[in-house]
């Protein structure tokens, strides 16, 4: 078992028993479910909207080369500098070089999961720059020196008291139980940062090939400020983010809002088509767009799971997942958590180290059903299990399955097995949950149902004999 798998098991065991954690997550998810249902219900046909969205994404991803070239040409035509990075290391270097060239000191950042993926903040801090996360949830987890708990709600696991205590300790503010006051404390701290920052870094929700635009969706206005005030703007984009046409956003913006937060539309949906243009009064003098591969082309090469690149990072599959709701976001130990994280992490970071995530699923299919772009998530988890076993078979599993096949394929062994099982079962409580228990991992937290005294076959035979 990889160290990551051990860590997953330890954390999962701890968190499923943490009642405070449970209450926080259940409350947040409960609120989300109500508004999401309402918003999806406002659509004239949500299911057809999903089909249309998955069709558009299919086109985008399956003609990725053409779209990327068009996107680049359009961006460059209006003065944007486009950079290409095959790896996280390259992307970090590109960004650090820009910052160094600008002799920047302070950097303001709006939420970007791609930046989490390549550990950009750590790299910038190590190089001696002051980096401030401006999204409230990200700001909170940054102060706690923690990764985001959820791709859309980074501080979902914290109560207002936790946050008040954190602000008192880190910012010297007076304790309060009012979310409004806590938000205003962060607003005051961050306002001065926007104005003094030399460089603004953002992520992207969509990249429009047709017009050469980056679309950013947010509620707080922090990304808008990040893209308005600093002299240099850097946008880090995964190559799979392209959409062919600007008008596609008419579908994707309301769907992202509905699936992501249950809103009809997120507060600010902004499209950026260049640095400050002639005749404009503000905006960055320079805009750098960094296109990031970082193993996405490997996932692209897997035709069976290529649709995982359709993901719009709405987080709906996390919210629907019974495993996520029990073990929590940090347990995954990944940038992307929940079902989509379990599917793509083995591709991004190595199948053998992360194959345990394929088993962090009840295979209920709630993720596939909720996904706005219809990614076949739970089947991809099965495919990852299959691929992991084919790539590196586990000897005892092979023997165990051979044994099972031997018993199950023969009438006499099967009947004999069941009979012996029912004789032995009354003895099971003597060893249940101890090291002597052969089924310990399973029975530690579950009850095994009693085997029937009489098999159906016996019953049927007796019944016919009576007749």
């Amino acid at each position, binding site marked *: 078992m990889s160290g990551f798998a051990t860590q997953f098991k330890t954390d999962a065991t701890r968190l499923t028993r943490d009642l405070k954690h449970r209450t926080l997550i259940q409350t947040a998810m409960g609120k989300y479910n109500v508004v999401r249902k309402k918003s999806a219900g406002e659509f004239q046909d949500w299911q057809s909207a999903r*089909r249309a969205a998955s069709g558009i994404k299919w086109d985008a991803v399956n003609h990725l080369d053409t779209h990327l070239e068009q996107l680049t040409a359009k961006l460059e035509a209006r003065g944007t500098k486009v950079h290409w990075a095959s790896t996280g290391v390259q992307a970090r270097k590109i960004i650090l070089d820009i910052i160094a060239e600008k002799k920047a000191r302070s950097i303001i950042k709006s939420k970007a999961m791609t930046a989490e993926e390549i550990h950009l903040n750590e790299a910038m801090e190590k190089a001696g720059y002051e980096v401030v996360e401006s999204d409230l949830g990200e700001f909170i987890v940054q102060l706690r020196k923690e990764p985001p708990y959820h791709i859309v709600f980074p501080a979902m696991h914290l109560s207002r008291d936790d946050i008040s205590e954190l602000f008192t300790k880190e910012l010297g503010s007076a304790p309060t139980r009012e979310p409004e006051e806590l938000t205003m404390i962060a607003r005051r701290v961050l306002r001065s940062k926007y104005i003094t920052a030399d460089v603004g870094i953002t992520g992207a929700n969509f990249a429009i090939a047709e017009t050469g635009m980056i679309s950013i969706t947010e509620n707080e206005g922090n990304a808008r400020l990040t*893209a308005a005030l600093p002299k240099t703007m850097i946008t880090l984009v995964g190559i799979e983010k392209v959409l062919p046409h600007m008008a596609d956003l008419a579908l994707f913006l309301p769907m992202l809002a509905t699936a992501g937060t249950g809103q009809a539309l997120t507060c*600010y949906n902004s499209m950026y088509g260049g640095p400050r243009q002639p005749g404009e009064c503000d905006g960055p003098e320079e805009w750098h767009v960094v296109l990031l591969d970082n193993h996405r082309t490997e996932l692209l090469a897997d035709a069976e799971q290529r649709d995982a690149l359709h993901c719009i990072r709405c987080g709906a599959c996390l919210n629907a997942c019974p495993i996520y709701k029990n073990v929590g976001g940090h347990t995954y130990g990944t940038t992307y958590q929940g079902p989509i994280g379990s599917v793509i992490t083995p591709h991004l970071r190595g199948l053998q180290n992360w194959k345990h995530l394929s088993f962090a699923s009840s295979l209920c299919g709630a993720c596939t059903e909720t996904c706005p772009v219809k990614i076949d998530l739970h089947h991809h988890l099965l495919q990852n299990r299959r691929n992991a076993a084919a790539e590196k078979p586990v000897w005892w599993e092979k023997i165990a399955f051979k044994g099972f096949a031997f018993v199950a394929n023969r009438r006499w062994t099967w009947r004999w097995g069941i009979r012996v099982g029912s004789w032995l079962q009354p003895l099971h409580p003597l060893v249940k949950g101890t090291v002597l228990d052969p089924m310990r991992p399973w029975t530690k937290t579950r009850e095994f149902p009693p085997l029937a005294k009489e098999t159906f076959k016996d019953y049927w035979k007796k019944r016919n004999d009576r007749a």
Partner: protein
Amino acid sequence: MTERENILARVREALRNPAPRPGAHDESHATEALEQPISRWLPKVGNSFEERLALFKSNAEGLKAVFHMVKDQEEMVARLGTIRDAEGWKRAATHKGQLTDAVAAKLGLPTILTDAGYDVNSLEQSGVGITECDALIAQTGSVLVTSKSAGGRALSVLPPHHVVLARKEQLLADLPGAFELLTKRYGTSYPSFISFITGPSRTGDIERILVLGAHGPKKLTILCF
């Protein structure tokens, strides 16, 4: 080879192996969804102007924006004066435009114009940012602004109150209509910033409790005549 060539080569190599069409795992998947106009799936908007205006108002108010339909520019000025007194604005910020020129001049406040550049600190300390817009969208209660129509990128997000001055002819039915308008109006020379503003700035990051004015304006007022 450059990284650009490397990445594009990997993409092309990967795509040589075709992926199943969407719906391959789902028999209920009808392909007709792809051929229909997007507006068919989106939330309904009424057919008449009155219905759409009512929808815009209820959507905007549901988002805690304030919407007033006024008779004429004069009433717009009066409304704005009332808010100025209630909130005690000391300074206003706006941009040149037909409506903003007519209205902002009558506020009787020191006023910053963003058009020819501005001091960020003074803009930040202005009580209000007054802008025009490209359109109002009934379907979502959104205001469509661009750096061209609304005085740049910061004017509509930095001051604590954003007031939008609009004409009722600017009301559009839905999002697909808004993108059509953008293409028609700007051709290929789009302003570098386009945004759908849907209610005042908000966050739910603390226990999913709604707080207005996370980083942008705490208040959004739309005056329309």
